């Protein structure tokens, strides 16, 4: 056993770091550093993706034949870590990190040839249509109907929590093609051109003011059956395959460690009635305890990484990482919000990225902030991070899964 990266790994990390240093403009760094949720600014994200694509690094996880890199798991981990340390924005996940794997695994040659290069280039930008108003974590209960009509499926219904639906030109979604079977059966995995007549996007305003989420309405939307991935009625198989990727995809420790360090720095200059916040032993102990947990979390991620090398999958333990990671992330936002004090109660979403128009909010003319920038971000991150224990299978559902799979209950 050892916890040290190999010389090759370190050289790789240095190479990635160098790339980030040279390619990141101040604007792109802001796009990474002023995020308040897991979603970055769309335009800047696409600009960044183009730079990555030029280097061949837009989708390193992909199969090499489709434009991926032949990296080890450790290299993938390090690449993502260096990205976070550099403050680069993330690539929007729905295309590159989600549907692309499905297309690679279940797509027809035509689907692969059309979509994969365009996802890489940004020409095709996907959103995800899974959840429905009456069907959240329980995907099997989804209702949106797709009726067969010749070579087409005709869609009627609604999807919700559709991130970036305003910007997306394609959606991958689950629709119900046959009723009366077991809930998991009769579902189909489908790609929908968002410009098809009958598609209507309504933004959802979040507590934080963020509007990346949407509800999408479908009224007699005709989609050619050639856009089905896998077989009609067999979408559950495809969805399950993807779910594994989604749960296992993220490491949490690197990003949280960056935030902990930042909080430590901010606390050095944040005044209290008795000195600086960092001198408050109770606060400093809270921060220390959280940093200690992150040190442990990092080793857990390394263990999973090592395990992944063995059998090629991250297994049920990814549910555990999702629970732990999102709960530590919410704890982090709580501590930062606490540190921000009264100043943290001022609403100033214009300081963030994406910093576009927020419904019913007029930013100050000078664009400045009350208090420090981190204090402006604090409540918005706190609000948005509450999504962590809810999305991608709520933590309650993850614990159900763990009880079954890991404890055999």
């Amino acid at each position: 056993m050892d916890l040290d990266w190999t010389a090759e790994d370190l050289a790789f990390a240095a190479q990635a770091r160098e790339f980030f240093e040279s390619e990141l403009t101040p604007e792109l760094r802001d796009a990474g550093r002023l995020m308040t949720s897991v979603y970055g600014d769309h335009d800047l994200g696409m600009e960044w993706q183009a730079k990555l694509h030029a280097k061949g690094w837009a989708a390193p996880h992909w199969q090499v034949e489709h434009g991926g890199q032949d990296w080890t798991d450790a290299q993938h981990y390090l690449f993502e870590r260096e990205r976070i340390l550099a403050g680069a924005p993330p690539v929007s996940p729905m295309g590159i990190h989600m549907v692309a794997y499905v297309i690679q695994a279940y797509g027809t040659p035509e689907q692969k040839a059309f979509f994969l290069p365009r996802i890489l280039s940004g020409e095709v930008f996907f959103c995800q249509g899974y959840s429905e108003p009456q069907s959240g974590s329980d995907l099997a209960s989804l209702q949106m109907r797709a009726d067969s009509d010749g070579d087409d499926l005709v869609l009627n219904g609604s999807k919700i929590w559709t991130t970036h639906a305003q910007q997306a030109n394609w959606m991958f979604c689950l629709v119900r093609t046959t009723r009366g079977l077991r809930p998991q059966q009769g579902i189909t995995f489908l790609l929908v051109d968002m410009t098809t007549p009958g598609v209507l996007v309504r933004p959802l305003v979040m507590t934080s003011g963020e509007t990346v989420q949407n509800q999408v309405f479908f009224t007699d939307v005709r989609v050619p059956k050639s856009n089905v991935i896998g077989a009609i009625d067999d979408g559950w198989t495809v969805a399950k395959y993807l779910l594994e990727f989604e749960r296992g995809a993220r490491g949490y420790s690197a990003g949280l460690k960056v935030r902990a360090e930042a909080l430590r720095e901010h606390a050095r200059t944040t005044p209290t009635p008795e000195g600086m916040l960092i001198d408050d032993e109770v606060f400093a102990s809270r921060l220390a305890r959280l940093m200690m947990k992150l040190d442990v979390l990092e080793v857990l991620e390394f263990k999973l990484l090592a395990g992944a090398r063995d059998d090629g999958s991250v297994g049920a333990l990814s549910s555990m990482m999702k629970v732990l990671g999102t709960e530590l992330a919410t704890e982090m936002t709580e501590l930062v919000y606490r540190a921000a004090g009264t100043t943290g109660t001022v609403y100033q979403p214009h300081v963030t990225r994406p910093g576009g128009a927020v419904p019913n909010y007029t930013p100050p003319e000078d664009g400045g902030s009350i208090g420090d920038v981190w204090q402006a971000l604090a409540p918005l991150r706190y609000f948005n991070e509450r999504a962590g224990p809810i999305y991608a299978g709520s933590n309650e559902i993850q614990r159900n899964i763990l009880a079954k799979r890991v404890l055999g209950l």
Partner: protein
Amino acid sequence: MNLELDEDLRMLADSVSGWLKQYLPFDRRREMRGGAAMRAFWDEMQGALGLAGAGLPEAWGGFGHGSQAHMVVAEALGGALAATPYIEAAVTVGTLLERLGGQDELGTALAAGKVVVLGWEEAQSRGDALSVLTEATLDGDVWRLTGTKRAVRWAAQADTVLVTARTPRGLGVFRIDGDVPARDYRLIDDHPAADLLLDGTAATLIAAGDAAAAAIAAAVDAGTAAVCAEGVGLMRTLLDDTVEYTKQRKQFGQALASFQVLQHRMVDMRIQLEQSAAAAILAALRGNDPAAVSAAKAQVGEAARYIGQQAVQLHGGMGLTEELRVGHYFRRTTAIENQFGDADAHTRRYRKLKVA
């Protein structure tokens, strides 16, 4: 000992709640944006109920019910998520003026619903009203104030703005007579607020010295006690909505409310609510004891976080949007955590008073 509300106060509670139910349905509250609209709502409510005077002395035209009235009114306001200057004006400044004495003119205005606010919080103060860096210096016979007051709620909508400042005689209370140099904004809970950018700003001294400092501390503690009661109202609505939602909403073919884990979660929310209601009583009835007020605020601050978070969690994604009222209430409970000092600040004060 008696933990039942007197008849007068029960009627007060019913009349405020009843009026809010009728005139502030949530759809109206949701569309109420900006300080001007909120001030207009306050004036409307005051016109209908005269509630500003509920806790204020009869000499000012109030009803003289004191801190128990503050508790009852604030809890009702919280229940409906009403955004009003009640706590800032009637409670905080009301207590300040009463403690200072000889302020009948301002007091009478206050009891009639005028909005008088006190700018006391600064970047470093974090709930400690006696931590003041703003300086008052005498320039001839004019006091001039320099310093920044942070997040002064309702300052731009106020009829009168008071501020705290250090004087050679100790902590003082001043009235700003001319234009208030301010940068206004809104808070995460929609309430209007402003930074007061005092830079040699002329002001009138109202009081200074130990008695003034004691009055300031008492005023802020009274506001703290009232915000505890408001929190109870907020949390009660959040819990009610959550119980109702989980009864309706189905997952895996069952109502969410049928899952034991969620049942116990809601029980824990309920226990926190009961503790908070007791805490609000403690703060209202023992408002002269800073340790009691701190015990209450720490309880309510932590409960507000827990109940707010769990209400959102049990509503799923919908709890994070502006679609349902839970998200709006969550913004207010979140603000309450840090308003008037957070749980850590109050634990510190209690520790110094009672432990070491």
